[in-house]
């Protein structure tokens, strides 16, 4: 415990860590402030306390009784227009077509096309259930839903993951390379604790990394939610009729999740997934850091490896079965899971073959990387310290 505490102290004493945290916070606050303050969003946040967020008769009755002042009249009218005679998007909605378009666009070989068809067939059942339960008939942010959903779950969450990953990688590589950088390998690794210090370094790095992420996350979202009132719409479904997604192959289509998520539960699930993803990047950095002892070179290698993981599936032409294997399995890698973070808990897109791709990818990544980490640690214990 004492060693863990002392290793943690080394990390928190790093000037680079605090400079990065301040820079990231400034960036996040700028992102929040420059994208918040939409009066219509504020109005919905306020009015939802009176009307509720479920688009039923009660909602319309209450909405019709709302007394708006001159300034709010326009927003009230806008909301009435947005919610006027809306229909459930999931009624009679055929999502199998999306799957067929993806198969056609990518030219997926039959064995993969079959998996894709099965996925969309299962998703069709989910869509039907969502239709039966009127899950989509919720307010969210009405006409501003897409913008607000993208701001929170794509932009802010995406940047927070990047920041968390960079801080985590930096911390673990700093910790693992600390003795090499200070030329203290000899005295540290010949002590009673010896190379077993790796455990304390790993535990301290994970704690510091998650602590750093939590700090960024807390400050960013405290400011975000103080500027954007979600209190009345937390219970709205993320698959609301007002939410949608858009890609060049399938066009504009409803935002379909495998399970029923309210904005709040989707927010929590996304945080949990983000933490899991950051942990998998920590393992990547740990493996690199135990092999390459120099922190700066390790960080560079970490960036190169992730860049290659992005580039390889994009550069390999879809000409052989092997190239499809590379493409589809690459999507389960941490860096691709990050790139697709705005699609978590949905069917994904053209390259995501399996349902629950994010959960599957995270589990596969964590398992594989844990195995490699154990091997890397075992190699480190046998390695000559020259």
């Amino acid at each position, binding site marked *: 415990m004492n060693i863990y505490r002392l290793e943690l102290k080394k990390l928190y004493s790093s000037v680079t860590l605090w400079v990065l945290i301040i820079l990231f916070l400034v960036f996040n606050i700028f992102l929040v402030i420059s994208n918040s303050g939409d009066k219509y969003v504020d109005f919905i946040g306020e009015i939802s306390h009176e009307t509720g967020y479920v688009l039923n008769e009660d909602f319309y009755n209450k909405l019709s009784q709302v007394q708006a002042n001159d300034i709010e009249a326009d927003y009230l009218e806008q909301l009435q227009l947005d919610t006027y005679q809306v229909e459930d998007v999931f009624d009679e909605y055929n999502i199998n077509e999306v799957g067929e378009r993806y198969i056609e666009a990518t030219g997926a070989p039959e064995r993969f096309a079959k998996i894709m068809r099965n996925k969309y067939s299962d998703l069709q059942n989910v869509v039907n259930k969502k239709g039966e339960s009127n899950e989509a008939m919720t307010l969210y942010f009405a006409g501003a839903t897409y913008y607000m959903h993208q701001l929170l779950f794509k932009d802010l969450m995406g940047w927070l993951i990047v920041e968390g990953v960079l801080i985590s990688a930096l911390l673990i590589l700093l910790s693992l390379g600390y003795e090499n950088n200070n030329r203290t390998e000899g*005295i540290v690794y010949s002590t009673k*604790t010896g190379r077993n210090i790796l455990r304390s370094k790993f535990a301290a790095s994970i704690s510091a990394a998650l602590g750093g992420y939590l700090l960024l996350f807390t400050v960013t979202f405290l400011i975000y939610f103080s500027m954007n009132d979600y209190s009345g719409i937390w219970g709205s479904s993320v698959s609301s009729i007002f939410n949608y997604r858009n890609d060049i192959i399938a066009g504009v289509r409803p935002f379909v999740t495998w399970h029923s998520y309210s904005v709040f539960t989707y927010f929590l699930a996304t945080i949990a997934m983000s933490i899991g993803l950051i942990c998998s990047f920590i393992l990547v950095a740990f493996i690199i850091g135990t092999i390459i002892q120099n922190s700066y070179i390790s960080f560079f290698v970490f960036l190169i490896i992730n860049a290659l993981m992005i580039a390889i599936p994009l550069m390999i032409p879809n000409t052989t079965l092997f190239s499809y294997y590379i493409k589809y399995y690459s999507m389960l890698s941490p860096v691709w899971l990050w790139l697709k973070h705005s699609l978590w808990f949905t069917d994904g897109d053209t390259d995501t073959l399996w349902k629950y791709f994010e959960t599957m990818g995270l589990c596969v990544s964590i398992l594989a990387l844990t195995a490699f980490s154990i091997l890397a640690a075992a190699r480190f214990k046998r390695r000559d310290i020259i």
Partner: protein
Amino acid sequence: MLAVNNVTKKYNDFTALENIDLEFENGVYGLLAPNGAGKTTLIKMLTTLLFPTKGEILWEGTDIRALDEKYRDIIGYLPQEFGYYKNYSPRQFLDYLAALKGIDKHDSKEKITELMELVALEDVFDKKMRKFSGGMIQRVGIAQALLNDPKILILDEPTAGLDPKERVRFRNMISGLSKDRIVILSTHIVSDIETIANQVIMFKDHKLFCNDSPSHICNTLEGKVYETWDIENVKTPHILLTQRQEGDNTLVKFATDIEYNGEARRVTPTLEDVFLYVYNDGV
């Protein structure tokens, strides 16, 4: 007893040490060889930083790799290039190393104060080490090696960076420490071990050249070392050892395997003479 049994260490195609057999009991052992002879390689193997390519190192009959932390618990090590955390004070740094050595926090506090006094650094106990001189850093290094009161104290070039006064102080300290422990001291400076080593170990061509007491090693050159003011007239094949300037004249010490009957005085060989004789191709 610490035993090195038939140990060879190779780095790819390069053989750093070959078939080394050594045994260490309590006392001071001086590893004496020029730079690059394999001293640091042996020391790093004794501290488990390197692993033998062939052979084994045993402590009380058990392989030190198998003993793992039980073995590391009884060693104290000062590396050749002693690294430290520049932003730490000696107190913080020794606190950290005490934790790594598994020393109880309460015990370590007392021990650290005691060691700081031993190495005469008590006045700069809480000063950041970035401002320390080479000698002060080396003294912190010696203190950390003694933290766990080691049964095996391994010091690689410990007097590097120390001024003459500190060297003498260090030698006296080592003599005092060697009574109930093994002290292995590597150096290429003969005077570091001449007076304090019970045994001197020398390597040549990456093999063990000798492992004997200083007097026995000196005896190997008995009758072969001479001093003369007129080296020009020494025609017998010889190896120049040292020169000393006195006024306009130079007193030259040389060694020869053939009995010399010219204008030269036979002298008692010193350890430095043996060192220069053995490694004459390098001097």
